[in-house]
């Protein structure tokens, strides 16, 4: 078995003395792990940093085997971010969430394109908005899509201020009044595409998506949501 694909490095774990088991999010083969021989050597470690875009070639005798990767670096998205705490935390969080949440070997090109776009955008000023949109996209692809298009109770399209933690649908302010302690605030930038998020709104957005990630995607996972996601929230708090 052999294939070539483009992938994003999600993680690399040392295996034995010189090798590493690397997990990639590939364009056509989904989240896929493989052995990189010599992956623990200093010369290769730069290629195996999370968030790197690589050209990958995977080989194995049988398809169910772990197989071995040979990797060539295309772009290091992380390097320009090393001195920027926020974007670096977003990169680490996105890679950790993808690694922990996505099923193995299930191709899903929108997920790959979404992560690739997010990593490209982390050098831009508006990266926080893209990050939250990416998490919403991830939730949607995993079957927990949130709907902010209209009020879940009345169908009205204006005055949407909250999200129901049960249905994941927006709730208008008038309907939410008696229950608003139990609802999650909906930051305006998530319904108005032109609005730029302020820090408190960004925190609200991360709490909103974090709630659904924690209670739906990672509820059954030992250890819950990856710590990297919490560290991103801490940056805005």
């Amino acid at each position, binding site marked *: 078995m052999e294939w070539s694909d483009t992938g994003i490095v999600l993680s690399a774990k040392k295996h034995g003395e010189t090798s590493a088991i690397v997990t990639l999010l590939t364009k056509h083969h989904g989240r896929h792990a493989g052995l990189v021989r010599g992956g623990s050597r200093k010369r290769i470690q730069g290629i195996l940093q999370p968030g790197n875009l690589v050209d990958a070639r995977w080989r194995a005798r049988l398809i169910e085997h772990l197989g071995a990767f040979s990797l060539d670096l295309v772009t290091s998205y992380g390097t320009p971010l090393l001195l920027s705490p926020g974007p670096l935390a977003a990169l680490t*969080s996105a890679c950790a969430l993808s690694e922990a949440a996505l099923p193995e070997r299930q191709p899903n090109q929108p997920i790959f394109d979404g992560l690739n776009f997010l990593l490209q955008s982390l050098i831009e000023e508006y990266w926080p908005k893209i990050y939250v949109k990416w998490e919403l996209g991830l939730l949607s692809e995993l079957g927990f899509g949130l709907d902010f298009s209209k009020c879940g109770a009345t169908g009205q399209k204006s005055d949407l201020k909250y999200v129901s933690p049960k249905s994941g649908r927006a709730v208008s302010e008038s309907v939410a009044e008696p229950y608003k302690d139990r609802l999650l605030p909906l930051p305006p930038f998530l319904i108005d595409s032109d609005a730029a998020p302020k820090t408190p709104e960004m925190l609200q957005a991360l709490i909103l998506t974090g709630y659904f990630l924690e209670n739906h995607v990672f509820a059954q996972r030992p250890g819950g949501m990856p710590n990297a996601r919490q560290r991103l929230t801490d940056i805005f708090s």
Partner: protein
Amino acid sequence: MSKTEIDDLIILLAKLPGLGPRSARRVALHLLRKRESLMIPLSQKLSDIMNAIKTCPICGNLDTDSPCNICSDFRRDQSIICVVEDVGDLWALERSALYKGLYHVLGGTLSALDGIGPDELHIPKLVERASQIEVKEVILATNATIDGQSTAHYIAKQLADANSNISGLAHGVPIGGELDYLDDGTLLTALNGRKPVAY
């Protein structure tokens, strides 16, 4: 010594870095041939070190004294703490003999998937040390990797209330390095960190 015991020795030696089963067999044979001159002193030294070695309760360094020789040396600059990932990094800085301050060994980096958190890395202890009045600067000498720098940013945030300057190591072209052989990331970091040239 029966064959099984020699096999056990080979299995243990093969666990050392750089040694596979074949080289472990060679080492075992060498030790068996030089029992008096090598095997006895080596086994004695290993036993002595095993009983004497301690982790420094202040900085996390490995030494036979507690606190370690670095922490108890009052000729060293007590106002600077250099934060490193591992004892190996501390040794590297000590080999250079350029740094004369104190250290703090984290014992790793924050890891997204392995669940390594601030408590496992002795970060609360570092915050406590950095808050002492005599500490003027904390140098974050973590590796130039995604995990290393994420850890550095996290520590910098934790130290925001401490009354000390927080600095990080420079990244860029190594001494003796040629631009042609550098990766794009290192080149970019070097360009971003350029300095005026004296004349």
